[in-house]
């Protein structure tokens, strides 16, 4: 096996790492859209809050004398998930529920307002400058001959793959097997009808926001550990990319969001690797336009049924 192959492998791994985190955030967009047909633009900010909680949790736990890295990370996951779900639920309660039943564009504006509010709230509370921490997980495995160009897979990348995979499996079991999951699917089919059949659709919508927030928190913990830097503005960029991934895969479809995230991540890495990082976003968005031209509902999206 030669250098060119390992270079390709390296870029593929880089792309899949970024792509898995896009996928985690994209699920939040796609699930909310699937049920209430609205884009939750504040979702990127929920991810950003997940990152901040990770930083605070890690520092706090370390100050309490916890030294084991796996326990620290576990603690960060638990705290980040709890706090971020509270945010996800409250956002729905405060910004969207009072507007239920109004015109489609109104909650959209409310979402943008929420996004600005959260961004500035964190900016005031935590400062506008980058906060950084040292890498907790270092090292990795080498693939290929050490002497020439070889691909390397860091332990952190492995953690990202495994965690993302576990989160996806857990989500699909929840959606396909549990009672609440079935109610979620029913709401996505026809929210009025499920209401008539005695399911509390408001509660189901609340749960959807919480699930989205949990996955955003998972992405927040993983990316905080991976990059080690956070500032109040990261939510915007991450949200934009994840939203693109969701649209690419077919908004409303959960496997679509995952596929869209991975495709977007790999496209970006390959463009940087073989063309120029200057054209990374150009190629990614050109791909989005192409796919939407050929399949207007995205890769795995189902055709929109006009509800009468």
């Amino acid at each position, binding site marked *: 096996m030669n250098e060119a192959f390992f270079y390709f492998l390296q870029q593929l791994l*880089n792309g899949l790492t*970024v792509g898995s985190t896009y996928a985690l955030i994209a699920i939040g967009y796609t699930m909310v859209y699937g049920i209430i047909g609205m884009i939750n633009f504040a979702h990127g900010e929920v991810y950003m809050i997940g990152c901040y909680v990770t930083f605070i949790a890690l520092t706090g736990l370390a100050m309490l004398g916890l030294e084991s890295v796996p326990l620290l990370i576990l603690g960060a996951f638990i705290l980040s998930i709890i706090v971020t779900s509270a945010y996800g639920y409250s956002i729905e309660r405060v910004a969207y529920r009072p507007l239920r039943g109004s015109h489609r564009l109104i909650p959209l504006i409310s979402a943008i307002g929420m996004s600005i509010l959260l961004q500035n709230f964190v900016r005031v509370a935590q400062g506008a400058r980058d906060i950084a921490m040292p890498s907790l997980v270092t090292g990795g495995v080498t693939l290929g001959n050490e002497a020439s160009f070889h691909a390397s897979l860091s332990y952190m990348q492995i953690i990202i793959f495994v965690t993302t995979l576990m989160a996806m499996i857990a989500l699909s079991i929840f959606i396909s097997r549990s009672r609440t999951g079935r109610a979620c699917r029913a709401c996505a089919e026809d929210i009025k009808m499920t209401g008539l059949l005695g399911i509390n659709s408001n509660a189901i919508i609340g749960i959807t926001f919480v699930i989205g927030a949990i996955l955003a928190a998972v992405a927040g913990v993983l990316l905080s550990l991976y990059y080690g*830097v956070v500032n109040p503005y990261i939510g915007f960029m991450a949200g934009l990319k994840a939203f693109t991934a969701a649209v690419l895969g077919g908004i409303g479809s959960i496997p679509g969001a995952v596929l869209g995230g991975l495709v977007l991540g790999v496209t970006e890495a390959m463009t940087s690797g073989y063309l120029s990082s200057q054209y990374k976003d150009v190629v990614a968005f050109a791909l989005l336009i192409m796919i939407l031209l050929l399949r207007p509902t995205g890769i795995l999206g189902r055709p929109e049924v006009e509800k009468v």
Partner: protein
Amino acid sequence: MSKTNQRISKLFATIALAGITSYSLAAEPIKIALAGPVTGPVAQYGDMQSIGALMAIEQINKSGGVNGSMLEAVTYDDACDPKQAVAVANKIVNDDIRFVVGHLCSGSTQPAADIYEEEGILMITAASTTPELTQRGHTLIFRTIGLDTMQGPAAGKYVVEQLKPKRAAILHDKQQYGEGIATAVKSALDTAGIPVALFEGVTAGDKDFSALIAKMKKENIDFVYFGGYHPEMGMLLRQAAENKLEATFMGPEGVGNSDISAIAGEASEGMLVTLPKAFDADPKNAHLVEAFKAKNQDPRGAFVFPAYAAVQVMADAMTLSKSQDPEVLASTIRSNSFDTPTGVLEFDDKGDLKNFSFVVYEWHADGSKTALTNE
């Protein structure tokens, strides 16, 4: 005439009389407007300018002022906002002040400078480095700091003469400042025949450079220049260290602040950066550094001494020409040289300094730096 009206006119009369009395008592002070951000996210830069300028005014007044008149500072806040800068400039015009030290951010200096030029006000900025500012044929606009276009060649010269890399990569953040400097560095390397294997832009705000770093590893890059600011440079350094890319990194003054060490940690050790000379370390400025310390002020800020120099150039020009006419002063400034704490300053026709040296520093993980070049 109603009672209120009577009272108001009496009040005005008193004020007018008071004005005349104070006018007759002493020679009118020469007012200098200090325009820059007093509030807002970059207020610390405004602080640097104001402590430098105020110190200069104090020193000049202590030694008898200018042609028998004292200097007086009037502070204006533009918050580094171009819209507010225009309002401030108009206010300065209305307040009949004819000398301005400022503004700070290039974006707000540019629109304000247009107003000063039109209204015949002399302006010297101690901080705005955009080349465009002085390229529009203005005659009353000067600066006591270098230009973005001077920094790239300074960095390029050091790379070509000292580092001599085998294969270089030049990156930038696709913005005016970063791309401009990166292009200048590239042309220096091209002239010297050093192969530039990569010349690419990255998106400001991006966090993931793993694909780019893998590419640089494959290309056997041993030198990376990044034109941009510290957040992206920090991530580049950090991810390069994690992926064992063994290359020397270099950047402009936009990466040279303590935040880089916070972001990149150990990986920031050994980074090269071009910065204006540390004027506070110059032994002949020791008395000024003492004077700043006595007032509990920090003389290390990049704009403190350039602001001091701006005030001094104005005052010296007034002494030399025995005039307070901005037009006369502008031609005096162009045709003379001025001995200031930032060195002997000479200005060209555009109003820029003929020489302004950037020094190459080696950065350390604890946020300190050592100079690698003298001038």
